[in-house]
């Protein structure tokens, strides 16, 4: 299908983009890579009055290390971050997750911040951002604020962004360890994850009896990423933790999978992902 009519604006600066968002509010949609937005427009699931195209804004096309964070600007495409030479050393979990994001062809246009803005519950980048405890940088004419990833994604395709705000960047905390794992189950590589699971061993947190503490993130089961710390203090600890999580998160039915299948996959794949992370050489 074809989109309904809309106005198109390609501002030359972030300031101009913010002015457009302040003027049009809810009636405007921000277009960056368009890999979710254009599909929704073509299917007429959205009918904005105006698109604000930020893809060419050079001031947003930056990856930089700011203190203990890696800041990725809103015009940075997913393949550029995937190929960033520092990625594996600084953000090993994200390096594992990015190959699962869409396909080679969609990563050539889709942006990192666009995935976070779209807030699909099965999406890998928001899952990784939440698992690592990252944050979202929002700008409007009213000012600038940062929101923790955990507070940003509010539900299915719903975020804390106000209509006049632009996500200018997301920030991933640099990881101190590299014991990580990421797996997902999908119908075809690159399709929507039925279940996606991230695990990162927290080296800094050592318990008295030498048990490992693992931070796990689960996508595709609840209406937003679920992040939990689990303590692995013996055989069967991961299994019982995921058993409890499966009941807690419930899951949802859609065209790809039933809630029950999502829970079963979580129980079966979850402990294997934690085990894989624990087996990584420190």
């Amino acid at each position: 299908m074809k989109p309904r009519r809309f106005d198109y604006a390609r501002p030359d600066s972030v300031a101009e983009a913010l002015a457009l968002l302040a003027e049009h509010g809810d009636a405007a949609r921000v277009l960056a890579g368009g890999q979710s937005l254009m599909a929704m427009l073509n299917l007429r699931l959205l009918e904005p009055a105006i698109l604000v195209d930020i893809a060419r804004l050079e001031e947003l096309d930056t990856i930089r290390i700011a203190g203990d964070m890696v800041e990725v600007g809103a015009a940075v495409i997913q393949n550029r971050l995937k190929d960033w030479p520092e990625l594996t050393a600084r953000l090993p979990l994200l390096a594992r997750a990015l190959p699962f994001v869409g396909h080679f062809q969609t990563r050539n246009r889709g942006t990192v911040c666009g995935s976070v803005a779209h807030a699909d519950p099965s999406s890998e980048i928001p899952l990784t951002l939440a698992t690592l405890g990252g944050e979202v940088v929002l700008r409007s004419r009213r000012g600038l604020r940062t929101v923790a990833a955990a507070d940003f994604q509010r539900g299915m395709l719903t975020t804390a962004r106000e209509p006049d705000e632009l996500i200018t960047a997301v920030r991933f905390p640099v990881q101190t360890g590299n014991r990580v794992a990421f797996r997902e189950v999908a119908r075809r590589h690159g399709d929507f994850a039925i279940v996606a699971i991230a695990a990162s061993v927290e080296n800094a947190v050592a318990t008295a009896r030498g048990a490992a503490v693992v931070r796990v993130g689960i996508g595709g089961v609840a209406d937003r990423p679920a992040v939990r710390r689990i303590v692995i203090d013996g055989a069967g600890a991961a299994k019982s933790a995921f058993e409890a999580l499966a009941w807690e998160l419930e899951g949802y039915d859609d065209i790809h999978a039933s809630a029950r299948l999502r829970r079963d996959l979580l129980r079966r794949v979850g402990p294997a992902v934690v085990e894989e992370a624990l087996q990584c050489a420190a």
Partner: protein
Amino acid sequence: MRRVNKDERARIAFILNGRAVAGDAEPRLLLTDFLRHVIGATGTHVGCEHGVCGCCTVLIDGAAVRGCLTLAVQAEGRSVTTVESLASADGTLNALQNAFRQHHGLQCGFCTPGILMSFTDYLARNPHPTEDEIREVLSGHLCRCTGYAGIVAAVLAASGGAPDTSRASINEESRSQP
């Protein structure tokens, strides 16, 4: 700031396969429809129109992207490359196209232009991919005729690689079973 109102038809100009082209388009016109209906370059095919099938894949500034998830106005000033660029002016197929022909990489041909453009970009970045790498790029396309084996063989041949023999032997075993 570039601004086009919804009922306005703006002049869109870009480089298509090395030649300057231009035409008029509303903001909502997709790059695929602009290429096919305004410019008349019908080599790029239109399948699902929501980014799943990959038939519409073209290169923008050398990168393989979905034509159906791109507005014509977004291609303004860019360099767009389509399947029409691959063969020589006299119709001689290039190495990748020729490999598709040799290895049964196509049957009806509907998905082929998009797949050729994806691998035109990918092989420029990674000239000697493994079979797994080829299959991963191919996961961004749907082909309903070939079962993909011929496409994988064609890309391997075009990049000077050999098929994965462990996979081939599994196929032999399954074939020999009653």
